[in-house]
């Protein structure tokens, strides 16, 4: 019996995201609920893993069984692994032609605007439905420059097999925490990107992850290698329709930024509010490289999300810009981590969090400056906005500075919507809810400004959806 979730979603119109079609059993292969050695072996068989990957999965499962559930964050008691279906495969092959994607799945992505976005503003698109990629395509001009963008499964068997083996879960080892171990055991889908030396990909690549099956988990793996002097903007989008039983997302993102390379990684996450989002993202940056994160967290019931950057080479740099919006029944624990391991490294973290209707948002961060990191600079600015008296906002920053020669700054602000500002806008004829929506969008503006236009519009629509209950 699937466990009922207590937290209910607001009566707002989420129809654009909640759209779903009832999966017919004959169209899908579903593994049985729960997590056992037999299940992991079955996933490995289904996926045709090489032997090392099969061994890796089983070792990860052992680590999973040994690790404790973290006790320091929001409660994940409602998540019972014995109810989660870890692998759901649509009975279709991955294709590079939307026409070949089965009608119902294609309709879902069309409603989300993915094929349209691809035509307009993307260099390549990957679309994952439940556990497997159903579509992957890269513009010919970009492919001709030697850029690789494919699913991890294909990469495991192709010319990049060794590259995958050398990087897969090296940055986030299964021993990192319980859900990293879980990921190692049951991962499926995700994207592999390789940008060769000196190549600039002018327009972004995007992977979109859609979890449609009730009670299922999604465990996609994203591995991106940006070689020396190369440049890439990668966008990830996620959504799922609402169910009354818990769904789980435990993805893993590993990013390798080469010498003088630049990677921008943007996420708009809008999981439904029955989702446990326990995602791990990590980047390592070589000399002179730049890592930029743009992160919008709107969905899920519970989130633990702290993208981490290791500044490994001298003069490497990290920028993190994030916004989190916690509504009714949501407990979103988000933030960022950075480790300065080399001289003259710099990092800048800027976050905005909003809580409403009893939602809880926590900003949690860790800044570590090791003694090798002379002249390191770090600055953190986190601002929270609480929209009523029943919501909650916390700030938990940690700093560990091991050199005298570092410049570290922290600024935190927690506030409420100013009644005067609402009155001011209303005095011009704007309704109260519109006025509040305007102020909240303005608060998040520093983040939406960082996004490509279409996504900034989507983010503003999401804020309006939460504030006003309709997309204007």
């Amino acid at each position: 019996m699937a466990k009922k979730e207590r937290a209910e979603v607001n009566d707002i119109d989420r129809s654009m995201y909640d759209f779903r079609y009832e999966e017919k059993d004959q169209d899908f292969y579903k593994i049985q609920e729960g997590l056992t050695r037999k299940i992991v072996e079955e996933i490995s068989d289904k996926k045709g893993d090489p032997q090392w990957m099969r061994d890796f999965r089983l070792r990860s499962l052992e680590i999973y069984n040994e690790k404790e559930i973290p006790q320091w964050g929001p409660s994940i008691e409602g998540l019972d692994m014995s109810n989660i279906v870890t692998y759901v495969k649509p009975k279709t092959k991955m294709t590079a032609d939307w026409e070949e994607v089965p009608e119902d799945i294609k309709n879902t992505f069309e409603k989300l605007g993915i094929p349209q976005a691809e035509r307009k503003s993307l260099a390549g698109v990957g679309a994952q439905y439940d556990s497997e990629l159903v579509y992957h395509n890269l513009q010919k001009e970009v492919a001709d420059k030697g850029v690789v963008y494919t699913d991890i499964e294909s990469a495991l068997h192709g010319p990049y097999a060794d590259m995958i083996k050398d990087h897969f879960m090296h940055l986030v080892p299964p021993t990192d925490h319980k859900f990293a171990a879980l990921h190692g055991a049951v991962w499926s889908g995700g994207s592999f990107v390789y940008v060769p030396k000196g190549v600039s990909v002018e327009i972004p690549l995007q992977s979109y992850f859609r979890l449609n099956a009730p009670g299922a988990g999604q465990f996609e793996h994203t591995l991106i290698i940006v070689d020396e002097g190369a440049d890439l903007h990668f966008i990830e989008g996620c959504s799922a329709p609402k169910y009354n039983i818990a769904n789980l997302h435990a993805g893993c993102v590993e990013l390798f930024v080469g010498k003088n390379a630049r990677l921008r990684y943007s996420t708009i996450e809008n999981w439904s509010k029955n989702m446990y989002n326990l995602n791990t993202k990590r980047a390592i940056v070589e000399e002179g490289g730049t890592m930029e994160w743009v992160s919008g967290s709107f969905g899920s019931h519970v989130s633990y999300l702290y993208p981490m950057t290791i500044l490994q080479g001298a003069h490497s740099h990290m920028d993190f810009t994030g916004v989190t919006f916690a509504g009714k029944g949501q407990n979103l624990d988000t933030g960022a981590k950075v480790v300065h391991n080399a001289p003259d490294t710099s990092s800048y973290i800027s976050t905005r969090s909003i809580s409403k209707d009893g939602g809880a948002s926590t900003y949690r961060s860790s800044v570590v400056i090791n003694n090798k990191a002379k002249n390191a600079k770090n600055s953190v600015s986190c601002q929270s906005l609480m929209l009523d008296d029943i919501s909650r906002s916390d700030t938990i920053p940690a700093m560990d500075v091991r050199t005298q020669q570092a410049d570290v700054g922290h600024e935190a602000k927690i506030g409420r919507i100013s009644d005067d500002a609402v009155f001011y806008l209303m005095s011009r004829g704007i309704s109260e809810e519109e006025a509040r929506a305007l102020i909240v969008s303005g608060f998040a503006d520093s983040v939406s400004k960082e996004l490509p236009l279409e996504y900034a519009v989507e983010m503003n629509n999401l804020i309006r959806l939460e504030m006003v209950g309709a997309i204007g």
Partner: protein
Amino acid sequence: MADLLKVKDLAVNVEDKEILHKISLTVNKGETHVLMGPNGAGKSTLGNALMGNPQYEITGGNILFNGQDITNDSTDKRAKLGMFLSFQNPLEVPGITLGNFIRSALQQRTGQHIRLWDFKKEMRKAMEILNMDPSYADRDLNVGFSGGEKKKAEILQLLMLKPSLAILDETDSGLDVDAVRTVSKGVEEYQKSMDGALIIITHSTRILESLKVDHTHVLVNGNIKAEGDASLVDKINNEGFEEFLK
């Protein structure tokens, strides 16, 4: 002619303390009223109460606008009916540009789509009257504006939204001579080309120099102590409020 604004025996509390006691006031269409009084007399309280600021509690009396009782109406409804308040301290709202804000306020007031081209043309004209650099239209609402630019932006909104009654709360305070002259030019334009009625709340008389004034009210300790025509302004200008404090 029907009264535009009729305030009858209005009593207003701020944080449970009565600030205004039974104020009555009538403004006809196109008239300019000046509300003067020493600091703390309740002038801004009256402006806020007329505009429906929820922090100002109306405990007695009523407000009629075009014959309609609006005493309990929300601020946005009053604005839609044709009222406007120019703020003493206009608030900074990041994330929306001055231009987009005015356009969206206009669209909400009228419920009609406004063509961008027409809107821009009209706004450029209004900005010229106010000596405002057109680039301000693309800047976030009041964010980083100087005191003078904020007040000009208020008058710009007045000219664009075209209310039938505008309450100017200390619009001239903190402005240098040139800025007062510019703001006053904008207000004059509102008077003349839109036949707009005004309640001008002020300490000083500089803003009034080029404006025709129909009525003057002197507010002291929450009561209207004296009323008169434009000459009362000159009298206060020469003699101060002393006579009314007795």
